[in-house]
């Protein structure tokens, strides 16, 4: 009982195929009321398919979709009570901002006064007071998307879905609007389902991220979980940067990678001796120092290597370090004015906390 009350939308074994091609393999997903859930994945991963199945863009091939406990699997879009924000805004070009926002209210037969109050309120919420008589063409991209959002919140749908809503905007505006959408979500408390292929956007905005690939869910969890405990190589590589190391567990319980390098792995990771594993290490979790300087000394270093590349990208500097066995490690650290102390060809020590090694699930 409590479960149902807390669940906004639930997908039970839903799949979609076009002919013989699966756009979405059998998937179950439950979204909590008021949650901000992001569907993250590369194009063709099935995130848009999932969105379309929920909104009624096309029918599911199998499975059931429940909205607030009600089966909407075969309901026409207009009876679902869902709001949607589109990447290309999808504003009616022949209507003013006011008329665009009033559209769902007029369809529902609201009185003129109600419409005026609600539209004015929605415009104020997205910071567009005074723009009611502009046509979409007379608005900037960001303003158009604000109208798109206002058009959605004005009729209080049960869920608001956003399909890459900031995809067409430039970087600064995108970041600003991310915050605006987050605040809006907090204020109105509606369930948001947000689609993006931008991992930073997903990490910044979501309560939970649903990472998708090849028409299925790879991992579902909080941004923290996805970043620090990716379960597969895909998850590790899609979100953030990563070093991947493969090897088998030796008799001492250490992971032996390539030619003779052994890595200590915490016991509670539950490695089985003799098995092959893939391990991920985030570049910024590796500490670096020149011999005899700073915190890393030859004695404590977990590995030694030669710098083969230095790239300074502003706040961070990335080093490419080659270990004696040829393995390349990416090492990321905060840039310092004296950054030029690392030079290609230089020998340096690396150290990391064994707790930072994440064992990945094998994919094949």
């Amino acid at each position, binding site marked *: 009982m409590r479960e149902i009350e807390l669940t906004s939308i639930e997908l039970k074994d839903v799949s979609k195929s076009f002919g013989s091609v699966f756009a979405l393999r059998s998937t179950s997903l439950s979204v909590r009321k008021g949650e901000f859930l992001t569907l993250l994945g590369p194009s063709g991963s099935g995130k848009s398919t999932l969105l379309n199945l929920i909104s009624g863009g096309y029918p599911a091939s199998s499975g059931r979709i429940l909205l607030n406990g009600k089966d909407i699997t075969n309901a026409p879009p*207009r009876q679902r009570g869902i709001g949607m924000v589109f990447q290309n805004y*999808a504003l009616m070009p022949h209507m003013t901002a006011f008329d665009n926002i009033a*559209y769902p209210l007029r369809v529902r037969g609201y009185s003129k006064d109600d419409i005026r109050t609600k539209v004015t309120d929605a415009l104020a919420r997205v910071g567009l007071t005074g723009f009611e008589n502009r046509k979409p063409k007379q608005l900037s991209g960001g303003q158009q998307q604000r109208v798109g959002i206002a058009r959605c919140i004005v009729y209080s749908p049960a869920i608001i879905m956003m399909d890459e809503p900031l995809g067409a905007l430039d970087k600064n505006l995108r970041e600003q609007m991310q915050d605006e959408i987050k605040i809006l979500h907090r204020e109105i408390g509606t369930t948001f389902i947000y689609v993006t292929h931008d991992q930073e956007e997903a990490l910044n905005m979501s309560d939970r991220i649903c990472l998708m690939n090849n028409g299925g869910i790879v991992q579902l969890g909080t941004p923290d979980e996805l970043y620090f405990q990716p379960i597969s190589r895909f998850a590790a590589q899609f979100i953030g940067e990563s070093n991947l190391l493969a090897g088998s567990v030796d008799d001492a319980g250490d992971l032996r990678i390539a030619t003779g390098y052994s890595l200590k792995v915490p016991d509670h990771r539950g490695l089985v001796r003799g098995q092959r594993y893939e391990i991920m290490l985030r570049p910024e979790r590796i500490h670096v120092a020149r011999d005899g300087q700073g915190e890393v000394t030859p004695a404590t270093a977990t590995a030694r290597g030669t710098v083969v590349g230095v790239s300074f990208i502003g706040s961070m500097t990335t080093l490419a370090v080659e270990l004696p066995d040829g393995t390349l490690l990416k090492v990321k650290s905060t840039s310092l004015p004296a950054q030029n102390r690392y030079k290609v060809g230089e020998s340096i020590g690396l150290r990391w906390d064994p707790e930072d090694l994440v064992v990945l699930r094998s994919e094949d």
Partner: protein
Amino acid sequence: MTSGKSHIIKDWRKRCLQILGTGLAFGVYLFLLAPSLIVTPVSFGSKYELKFPPASYSLDLYRIFFSTEAWTQPLLLSLRVALSTTVIATFIAVPAAYGLVRFNFLGKKFLLALIMSPLVIPSVVFALGIYLYFSTLRLGGTTLGLIVAHTMFVIPYALVIISAGVQKLDPNLEFGAMLMGAGRLRMLMTVVLPQLYPSIAAGALFAFLISFDEVVISWFLAGPNTTTLSVKMFSAIQWEISPVIAAVSTILTAVSLVVCLINVALQKGGEQSS
């Protein structure tokens, strides 16, 4: 020095080619325009002889045209047929264009080929078929027969123009409207139609002009009381080179020019609004 010289020669050669190309192009423009340009001055000439340039100018030919029932009757018939055809064809072509662009269904290609067939089948063949068919239905020589045949004949043109308009519409708008709660009919009236008006207007204009100018089908279907202006003109050019034809031609050219300009204006308007 030498390299500079060859540069000049090269430029000179390029310039020559350009001038040659422009000259040839304007020759062709003249060739294309000459017929449309010639008839106008002739139409303001004398009623006794066909001469270019006319020796004296008058409105005699227009006066004769508008006071001769043998010309005004066909003119009125052509207007009636073209207007009816335009209205019916538009009402058929608009939903058809939307249906053909937005939906996939069994037999779509066949249906499309059938609707577009008057564009490919020689008019004479189409006209003969309709003539034989309408003779058995006793529709030969009737205004209704003309309107039905013209409607079929102009629909492909209207359909091409209106479909191009539908293709420019964003399907997300239509889906979004339905998601916001609009029924299909309401969505079509408030989202699709308002955006399509320029294309519909262009398609209707096109339909009107094609029906008004159509000769071959009308020639086969014409009866004693159903001679359209173009049929009357066709036989007039064949049998009597009357100067009045110059006046008719000028009127037809003026109609074409107006349609052409409205179409250009609509296209510009369409570009601005999209």
